[in-house]
């Protein structure tokens, strides 16, 4: 056998060996592909939708690695030079060249949302980069890798920490912008305007209201995502209802179709609470055509109302899915699961959505480390919704993209968050073979419940010997029983004592903000009890507790952290907010009710005087508009002139004109 022949046989054998190896590897590769959803319908649809992606993943062949390297270097060099004009483009290219690497997508999104954004100077630029990060994950990465836990975690984290947190210099502008976008789309959720309504009833109302959107005609097959802004077959389905089609015909005459134009017209002209709640001035009607359209939008005949609600729910569901990639059914499911009135204008609600959605879609094993992180995101979102889940916004005509935005605590989240904690803690303890009180989430759980107790005590939900679920005493007992907490503080006579002791405890974190929130809650409760529900006992209890809280805090706080102005000043300011901007406290109160609250404090003119001084002009206008006699509704409190004189002495620079007259 010649040398050439031997080489030929060796080559043949080698080829056969390689072929066999490739054949053997084929099965695990296919299994892995299926497991990772490489060959899912969603992936194929994404490929079909983006020919660029198909080209980039196949044409460069072996040069793909070189191209990726070059693009990484270019993106990093440009970033270091502070030149970000094509950063989004580069990030997209890099990701599209390796579309099944979730780490790459996550890094690029993180880079835009966290690194590039903070190098810009205006809030608009900042928002653009933060939202670019969201869009890259939500609209591109997750479409390619629908079962990647990492991507859902990153997306949830941007909503939770970047937009919802307080570390970024411009975090308020993100909250405002997002709230504005969601307000335009969904409107305000039904609010607890009726003071006699229980919190549970309010929650049911909010959940029920969202049900209309969740059940609107929508096909959530991933293949159809974002193919059309409004799914035409579903639109036809909606129009099959003769009541809807008749109303739609009328709207068409004004150029309003079943799409964003309907939302535009509704937001502009509707007098429904969900829109009125954020307006500063009523809609201005400039022409006859606008008057007619406004009349149609506000037509409250049963048929028109029913048709309008169906159409609005349909458009909202379509845009939620096709633009924001949010599944209305799952949004509703979350609200029902936790029995909470999730306000989708709050970024934390979206942090919760994406973490929970990731857990649902990826269904990871208990041992997956990312699962614990996801659960933390779910819990942290719920915790933050407890302390600031109640959103109130006011449109600013001068800057509609950035409405005035207020957030405050919402006690309805306490019990669901507690229950979710228990569920995750039990699973963790079981997995690690520990007792319940030693679970990984224990510290977080206890700290959360202590904070919840602060809020509950402030709101007068204390509980007695046999405390009900949702009262401070109930959670206090729970911690002692399940987490076996002992010590002086845990042997307090009452939960109120515990809260005050904990406030003044050595080594406790600076609690300026928490104390102010608690004072605000307690005093609001007191003022409402006396002014609106005539519950003098409740007023006295709350008032006394507020004083105690204030004194305990002032005693323990460093000089620079003391609350300025004394207790009366705090109470006066809470009254000012209650009379001037009750919505920021989660209440809508008529002028007559405001007057009742004010008049009920006749024995505390030192409190009245603070609110009167600040709100005189505003309340005068409010009374005039409502045909109420201002002098009777809000009589000037005794000592007003003295108070004003004192103010002028303290702040002469702020009032130079008056100083000259002295």
């Amino acid at each position, binding site marked *: 056998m010649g040398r050439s022949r031997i080489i030929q046989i060796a080559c043949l054998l080698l080829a056969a060996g390689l072929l066999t190896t490739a054949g053997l590897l084929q099965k695990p590769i296919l299994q892995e592909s299926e497991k990772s959803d490489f060959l899912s319908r969603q992936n194929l649809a994404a490929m079909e939708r983006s020919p660029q992606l198909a080209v980039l993943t196949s044409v460069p062949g072996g040069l793909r690695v070189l191209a990726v390297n*070059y693009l990484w270097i270019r993106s990093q060099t440009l970033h270091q030079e*502070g*030149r970000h*004009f*094509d950063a989004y*483009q580069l990030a997209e290219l890099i990701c599209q060249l390796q579309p099944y690497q979730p780490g790459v997508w996550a890094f690029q999104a993180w880079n835009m949302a966290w690194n590039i954004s903070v190098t810009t100077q*205006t809030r608009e630029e900042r928002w653009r980069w933060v939202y670019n990060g969201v869009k890259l994950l939500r609209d591109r990465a997750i479409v390619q890798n629908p079962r990647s836990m990492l991507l859902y975690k990153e997306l949830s984290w941007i909503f939770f920490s970047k937009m919802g947190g307080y*570390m970024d210099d411009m*975090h308020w502008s993100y909250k405002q912008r997002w709230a504005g976008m969601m307000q335009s789309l969904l409107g305000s959720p039904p609010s607890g305007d009726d003071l006699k309504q229980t919190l549970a009833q309010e929650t049911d109302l909010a959940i029920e209201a969202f049900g209309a959107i969740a059940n609107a005609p929508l096909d959530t097959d991933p293949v159809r995502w974002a193919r059309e802004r409004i799914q035409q077959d579903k639109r036809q389905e909606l129009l099959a209802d003769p009541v809807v089609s008749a109303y739609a015909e009328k709207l068409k005459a004004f150029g309003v179709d079943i799409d964003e134009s309907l939302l535009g017209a509704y937001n502009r002209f509707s007098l429904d609470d969900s829109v009125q709640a954020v307006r500063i001035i009523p809609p201005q009607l400039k022409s006859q055509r606008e008057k007619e359209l406004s009349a149609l939008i506000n037509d409250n005949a049963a048929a028109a109302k029913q048709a309008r609600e169906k159409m609005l729910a349909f458009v909202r569901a379509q845009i939620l899915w096709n633009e924001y990639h949010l599944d209305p059914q799952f949004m509703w499911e979350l609200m029902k699961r936790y029995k909470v009135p999730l306000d989708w204008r709050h970024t934390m609600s979206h942090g919760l959505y994406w973490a929970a959605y990731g857990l649902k879609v990826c269904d990871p094993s208990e041992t997956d480390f990312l699962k614990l992180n996801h659960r933390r995101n779910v819990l942290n979102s719920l915790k933050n919704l407890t302390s600031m889940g109640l959103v109130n916004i006011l449109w600013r005509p001068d800057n509609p993209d950035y409405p005035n935005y207020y957030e405050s605590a919402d006690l309805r989240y306490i019990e669901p968050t507690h229950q979710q904690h228990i569920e995750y803690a039990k699973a963790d303890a079981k997995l690690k073979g520990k007792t319940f009180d030693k679970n990984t989430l224990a510290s977080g759980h206890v700290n959360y419940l202590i904070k919840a107790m602060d809020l509950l005590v402030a709101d007068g939900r204390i509980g007695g010997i046999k405390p009900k679920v949702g009262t401070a005493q109930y959670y206090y007992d729970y911690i002692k029983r399940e987490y076996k907490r002992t010590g002086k503080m845990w042997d307090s006579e009452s939960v109120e004592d515990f809260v005050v002791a904990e406030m003044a405890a050595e080594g406790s974190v600076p609690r300026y903000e928490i104390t102010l929130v608690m004072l605000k809650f307690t005093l609001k409760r007191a003022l409402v009890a006396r002014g609106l529900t005539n519950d003098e006992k409740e007023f006295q209890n709350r008032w006394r507790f507020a004083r105690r809280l204030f004194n305990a805090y002032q005693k323990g706080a460093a000089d620079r952290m003391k609350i300025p102005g004394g207790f009366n000043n705090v109470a006066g300011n809470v009254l000012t907010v209650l009379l001037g901007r009750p919505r920021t406290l989660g209440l809508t109160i008529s002028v007559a009710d405001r007057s009742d609250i004010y008049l009920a404090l006749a024995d505390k003119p030192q409190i009245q005087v603070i609110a009167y001084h600040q709100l005189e002009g505003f309340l005068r206008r409010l009374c005039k508009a409502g045909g109420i006699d201002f002098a009777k509704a809000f009589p000037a409190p005794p000592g007003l002139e003295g108070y004003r004189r004192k103010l002028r002495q303290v702040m002469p620079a702020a009032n130079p004109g008056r100083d000259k007259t002295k």
Partner: protein
Amino acid sequence: MNSIWAVARHTLSQCLRMKIAVAFLLLLAAGLAILPLVMTGDGTLAGKIRTALSYGVGITGVLLSILTVLVTVAVVSGDIQQKHIQLLAVKPLARWQYLLGRWLGVVLLNAALLGVAAVTIYLIAQHLRGSDPASAVDHRTIETEIFTARAEVKPQPPNIGKLVRKRIEKLKVDGRFDDALQTYAGEVDRKGKTPQERLYAELLKQELSRIETAGPMGAIGWRFKDLDLAGRETKAYGTVKISRADVGQFRISVPTPLAGKLVYRGPVRIDDISGQVISLGRDWFDVRFGPDVAKRQHLLDLRKGSTVEVTVEPTIQFRYKAQPTVKLPAGKKQLHRVLYFGPPMGKPIYIVAGSGPTGTPTTMTVPAAGAVVDGKLQVVYRNIPAPPTGPSSMVFMPPSVRISSADVSVLYRVGGFEANYIRSVLLVFCQLVFLAALGVFFGSFLSFPVATMACMVLLGGGLIFNWLSEAVGWYGQGGEFDFSGFVGNIVLTIIKVLMPNLSETSPADKLVDGIYISWASIGWASAWAVGARATLYLGLGCWIFHKRELAHVQV
């Protein structure tokens, strides 16, 4: 000369018939056609225009470079391989004339293709310029940072040598000089520096750090000279839209490019009368005149519809990159500062306070009037704490900030975009001229595949030279000798000699930043970086070709 020209013309027509040339031509046309459709930039119009310019010039440069190499090598080595050269050899045509003709033909082809591509990119950019900008800032950026040509002036270097000598004198006076020297005497220096040299280098580093760092409430200053702002005003005619002559206030509509050059609260002249811009729109601005000036009859006569000459005073853009000396928490990249602009030794004319990002270049625009005197300017950066945000908020001292002189510059408009664009295209052309010479050289003695590969390796090396030189080091991480680094450096040195640094001569970065490309830089590129090497390659190619035996006599 006629012979060369004849070969060049033949080469040009031959190239146009080649499939590969047609393929690249189509690729280039497709690339430029889809450019405005796929380029999104960062969401702003400025970003989109920058991306279109950068990618447009980049795609054109790369595709034409590859085409040049392939075509040049193909025509020269192809003639030899297919023995067409033997037909030419018997004609009255010197071999050097043949090679020069081939080179010239490819250069002409490049000139034509580059011209068409350049016009296309320019039209795309101008088309995008006419779109609606995302914001007023976006509009300003387009007009003052892209469609312009700005000179960049670096600050005067501080006399650090003098400061170091003072430190050494002080060490000697204190009797600590020998101790300091002793610290370095014990260490082995791989580069063979003496202890004195190393001590000097260390002191130099310390002094530089000291003068480039501002502690809390501290300041850093820079002086600039030779700012040639004379006659840099921009003029255009505008129309009075709203006249409130009684209070000395007018709204004037002007062409969009001019409106983009105005600065809020900056000076502007209307029919040579100085006023102040108080409000700005995309194609209009509001101007207010001082009480005395407003009484002038000429202003009182201005009515709605009157045509006025608007003169925009030159502005300067101060660019710097501040680095905090400690790591800031996530999301806290902004630091507060006050910037003072004024003539050296004089009172500051403009004071700009606020916060600015760290770790990334920041640009501030201020009017030049008053601040720049006799071409001189002084800028001072003061590092201040953030103002308190409420009664309970605390004032934290800011971290120290370092601003390297290399990261500081002043920019001002010295010309228009069009002329700058033409110069940038000429720079690309210079590169193509060189690559044609390279192709001729390798094609004259190597076969098509080998010559192409040699050219491509060098072309790639030239394009990513900066990155390669950063990536390849002589020493490993621990300071030990690294063999692969050694070999890599030798390869780099070879590339450096054989190739101009194409990443440095590329005009795209300057173009998208509106940085003035001087004739001097083109002269340098054409004469030395590219010209000399091209001549050398052509000369060598001619010499090798002249000596080469084109046919073997077989008996």
